[in-house]
Every structure is written in C-alpha cells, then in structure tokens.
C-alpha cells in the first residue's frame, strides 16, 4: 500500500498546474474576497478625495465565454476541462477590480466615474481627474488564461495620469496592494507617467463586519474556501483513476497480482494527506496574512485541528467511493459529470459559496448534513462558543461518513478487473 500511496502523491506533485490550483487558488480567493469585501484602508487617517476615471473596455462575459471556448478546444479530456471551468466559475478578474472600487471604505477615499478613454484623457488633462484606470479589452480572458492555462498575458491593467501627486501615489499604492495581494503581478503591470512609489505591504483586513455574526467575514471566507477546495481535491484524485484506466496502467496493476484494496487505500490515504495539508496550509497563510483568529488559545487550535482532520478523512472516503465508481463506469466523462454535480451541490448546500442562512430552511437543514456544511458550522460555532462538547457529535458524524463512503467504495470496487 505504501507503494501506491507514494505513487499517488508523486503523480499529484508532478502536475504543477494541479498543485498550484490546489494551494494557490484558495489563498488568492481568500485574499481577493477579503480585500474586495472588507476593506483595507481604514487606518489611512487623513481623508483624501481622489478622483479616478474607470475606462472599462473589457467585456468580462465575453472574456469568460472566450476562455470557455479556448478550454473546450484544448487537447484535454472532458474531466480536466470541467475541472478548469469549474474552478474559474468562482473567479472573475474584471469584476474583482470593479468591486474593489465599490467597497464602501474605498469609496470614502476614491471617487470613480465610468468614462470612455477619450473622455478620460481629456478630464485628466483638464485636471478634473487625478488619474484613470484602464481595464483593457480582453483583460478577463488574458488573466484567466494566464492563471489557469499558463499562457502569457498580453494585456495589462494600467493607471495613467498627467502629473505626479499625493493622490496618484495613494491610488497607485492601493492598486499595488490590491494587485499584489491577488498575486496577479505576473499578469498585470501598472504604468504611470509619474514615478512609481515603493508599494506598501498589504495590510490585513482585520475589521469585522459589524452586527450580523460574531464571526468575521475573513474567518468565514477562510473556512469556506479551504473546505471548498478540499472537496475539489476529492474529485481531482478520483479523476486520476480515469487517467490510469485510459492509459492502461490500471490493467498493468491488476496483472501484478497486487491486492486491489491496496490500490484503493493508496488513493484514500493520499487524498487524506493532500486535503489535510491543503486545508492546513490555507489556514496558516490566511492566519499569517490577516490574523484571522487573533488571540486564540491553544485549546482553540487543537479543536480546529481535530475538525480539519475529521473533515479531511471524510474527503478521503469520498475519493474512495468516486474511484470505485470511476472503475465501474464505462463512460468516464459521465463519471466526472456526476462527481462535479455532487461536489457542486455539496458546496452550495454546505454554504461554501454563500452563508447557508440565505438558503430556504429545508435546504439549510440538508446543507447542515453535508460533510462540508457540517464542518463549516462546527468551526464557526467553535470560534464563537469554544465548547468542546459541541465537537463530539459532529466529529462522530464526519467519521461515520468516512466509514460509509469507504465501505461503499470497497463494496463496489471491481474485484479483479475482469469484465
């Protein structure tokens, strides 16, 4: 079994794109959502009034469509295409920039105005605008394909101004922070006629959205994103089986006479390790960037670790089940479709995209029973109440899920690969 585990880990590790998506994307999303929605610059002190023109030449819908087309035309199998598209469905670069400026806290400092490029140039010349930000045509497509497909981005975001000013500096800094924090520097360049200032370090979005809940938005986002991507991990690893089947390695494995359960357990264990690491890394980086859980006790962290471990175990059970299903189905595209559907429904119902409270009551009740919804709820409760008694039953349920998934997976595993 050790050999299988090692092989699965190695195969995963070699797929650089997969690793980047698994590790970087959740963090990027946490940072982006956090910056975009909870505001960065409240301690900037002095009130400024920066007038900025936004020249939006990009049609993000069209860009998304084009990206989808490009992915569909690639020489990948359906499963990989779907995985890419699924992961981009939560990610829209143009909109992120727009919503950055829409943030109430940003709005106190920066006043934006949608203008055409010609108008913008004129207004800047006349001194009515400090600068304008141009989102060039094809921006969405370029960013998506640079992040997801490793292609060079040929368009860049630009800031243009007539003369150097404090306002321009602040704008540049804010934009730099924003861009740096989304880790898109590779794709974006900021151009100004004045000299660029040293970018400030990103500042943590520590403020809590007041009133609604006693957990912070940042906390919610961190938990939601890390559990969401752990769910994706179950699918990613199960889909490796498709490759193994297609490339006939699975047949070769059967010919060695090794016990099929070793194969299944290797996959299960690999998923456990990888999703556990993924969640832990996401939490750690999020904590370092934003101090998501300030001044928490050791007991809190241990509790958190227990929930994460139980959840990762459930995820690994899911992979076992998915793997067996894949081996049973002739049509692997159907398998990947089914898994996407299951994962996405779990994510929606479990509150990984929006807090579960906005769903109708009966869906909420179902959502609380999904492993991810359960984990999310338990962690949020743990943050607020810190009552270890609350952990026991949910952990039992998660473990139960693991056992049930694993058993089902073993039960339908095709014994000797004959048909």
């Amino acid at each position, binding site marked *: 079994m050790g*050999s299988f585990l090692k092989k699965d880990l*190695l195969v995963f590790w070699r797929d650089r794109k997969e690793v980047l998506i698994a590790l970087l994307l959740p963090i990027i999303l946490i940072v982006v959502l956090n910056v975009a929605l909870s505001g960065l610059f409240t301690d900037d002190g002095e009130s400024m009034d920066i007038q900025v023109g936004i020249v939006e030449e990009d049609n993000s819908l069209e860009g998304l469509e084009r990206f989808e087309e490009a992915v569909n035309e690639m020489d990948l199998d359906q499963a990989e295409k779907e995985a890419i598209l699924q992961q981009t469905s939560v990610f829209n670069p143009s909109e992120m920039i727009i919503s950055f400026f829409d943030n109430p806290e940003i709005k106190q400092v920066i006043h934006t105005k949608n203008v055409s490029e010609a108008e913008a140039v004129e207004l800047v010349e006349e001194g009515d605008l400090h600068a304008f930000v141009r989102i060039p045509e094809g921006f969405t497509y370029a960013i998506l394909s640079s992040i997801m497909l490793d292609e060079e981005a040929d368009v860049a975001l630009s800031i243009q101004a007539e003369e150097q000013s404090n306002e321009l500096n602040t704008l540049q800094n804010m934009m730099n922070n924003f861009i740096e924090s989304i880790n898109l520097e590779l794709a974006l360049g900021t151009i100004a006629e004045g000299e660029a200032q040293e970018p400030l370090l990103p500042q943590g979005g520590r403020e809590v959205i007041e009133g609604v809940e006693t957990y912070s938005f940042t906390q919610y986002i961190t938990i939601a994103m890390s559990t969401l991507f752990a769910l994706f991990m179950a699918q990613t690893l199960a889909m490796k089986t498709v490759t193994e089947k297609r*490339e*006939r390695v699975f047949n070769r494995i*059967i*010919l*060695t*006479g*090794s016990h099929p359960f070793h194969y299944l357990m290797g996959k299960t264990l690999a998923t456990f390790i990888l999703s556990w690491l993924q969640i832990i890394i996401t939490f750690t980086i999020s904590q370092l960037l934003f101090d998501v859980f300030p001044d928490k006790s050791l007991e809190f962290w241990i509790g958190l670790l227990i929930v994460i471990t139980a959840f990762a175990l459930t995820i690994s059970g899911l992979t076992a089940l998915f793997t067996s299903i894949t081996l049973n189905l002739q049509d692997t595209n159907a398998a990947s479709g089914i898994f996407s559907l299951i994962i996405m429904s779990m994510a929606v119902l479990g509150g990984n995209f929006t807090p579960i409270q906005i769903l109708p009551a009966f869906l909420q009740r179902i959502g609380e029973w999904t492993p991810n919804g359960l984990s999310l709820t338990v962690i949020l409760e743990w943050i607020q109440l810190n009552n270890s008694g609350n952990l026991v039953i949910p952990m039992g349920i998660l473990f139960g899920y693991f056992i049930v998934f694993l058993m089902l997976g073993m039960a339908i595993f095709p014994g000797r690969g*004959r048909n």
Partner: protein
Amino acid sequence: MLETIKLSKTFKEKKAVDEIDMYLDEGESVGLLGPNGAGKSTTISMISSLLKPTSGDVKLNGKSTIKNPSEIRKVLGVVPQEIALYEELSAYENLKFFGKIYKVKKELLEIRIQEVLEMVGLKDRQKELVKTFSGGMKRRVNIAAALLHKPKILILDEPTVGIDPQSRNHILETVKKLNEETGMTILYTSHYMEEVEQLCNRVYIMDHGRVVASGSKSELLSILSTEDTIQIQLSKKSYPLLESIKGMEAVRRVEETNEGIRVISKKGSNILSDLVHAAEKVDIQIIHFQMEDPSLEDVFLHLTGKTLRD
C-alpha cells in the same frame, strides 16, 4: 505449458474471438499474426486474465486459470499494445513502482531495474519523465516494466507499432535474446511478417476471431504448394491484358506490382504460353518473367484475403 481451449469472447453481438485453440511450449517463441480487428488483443487479454472469456479455458500446466488467476499472473509478463505507464513519472520511478507491486524483493529490485533498463538500452535516460520520451523509448520502457519479475512467459502485443527503425531493431534483438539466452517463452503479436519470421519458431494466423492456420514457416508455406506465382515484367501497362489474364481458368489472382504484374495460378497449370499469347494479342511484350517462391506474406494473403498492413 500454456494452452487455450475453445477460447471465445463475444462482445454484445460480436464474436471477437471464436473457439481458439492455441498452445505454447516451454522455451518456444510463437507468433500471432492477424489483420486489424482479428481478435489478437482480445485473445491476449483473456490469456493474461484481464478479460473473462465468454466460454472456453486458459490452462497453465494443465490447470485452469479462470477461477484463480494468481498463478498465471506470477509467471506472465505482458507488454500491452498501449503504453501502460505513468507519463508524469520517470522511467526509473515507473519501474520502481511496478517492481514493488510485483513484490520483487527490496534488495533485488534496484539491481533488477538496472538490468531491465540495460536490456532495453535506456539506462542513461532513466531519470527522465516518460512523457518526454519518444514513442520508441516509451515502448521500450513498456517492455522493461513487464520484465521486472522475471516472467517465464512474455506476451507482447504489437510492441513495434509506430516507432523508428532503430528502436524497432532494439526491441527485436531484446526479445530474441530473452528467448535464446534465458529460455523465456514468447508470444509475439505483430502486423509485420518479417518480424515474426525473424523471431518465431511457430506462427498462428488469426482472422475474424478464428485461427485460420498455424504451424512452422515451412508448414505454412506448404499451404501454398497448390499455387504457382509468376512475376512478369511488361513493356507497358494494359488494363485489357490484366482482365484477359484474370479470365483464364487456371489463374487464381492477379496483382499489379511496381514492374508489372504477379500472377498466382494453380500448381502445374503451365499457363506461360497462354500468357504470351494474351500479351501478343494486345501488342505488349513480356520483357522478363520469373517463377517466385511464395512467402509467408502470400500465405497470409491467401488465407485472409488481406495484406497484413491494410
């Protein structure tokens, strides 16, 4: 040592393999020839326990392997038609993984990996990822992976398809050496008659799921002892001449070749004078003619009505 008894496989309606009887004696090197879709790979899958036969049996040393395939898996090395390797892993890592799950002893495995790499001539490229290899190199690793556990019987399913002549030669040499030097029993599937002629003592010819002929080279050639082949060089091409020759009673087949035509006729029918007459009639000279010995290729054509590679 290994035999199939009325081995059959039906997919839905289609009979892919139809009551095949085959045997392999220890140390033999046997060829399995057949056009596309003849059922070669399906036969191999059943022999190697990957596919359950619809009926019939596969016996190893007299014991059925259908119920309990673990014995045959131990002694069998299978080189599948497709490359069955992890593209993202290096040649070495692939071999290490398969060696471990073949349960090659830890202290032997390292030596064994180097041995098989040496055999297929990839020792100095072992650290490179399989996906960066050429088709020929992948094929060679594909073979190496089947040799790790020192199988007694090696089954190769078209191991030289679509690769460069150099890799092809290397593979043929390797298989020949394994058979001659280590006494490994070989079942070699191919589209290439000359490979099988070079490697194998015995040949099975399959078509439409059935064995249509089998035996040593000379036995197979004797199938054609009822035919004469005449190679004729003509002053120019002529369709009417072709037709009139085809119309002769003793003629079985006429094929166009680069220089002229090849006429296959009933043995001893002595059609030469008829041919000369026919040519004179349409004012064409016979520049040169030659009686030809039949080749296995001709046998194949005779049996299946197809050339090997179409």
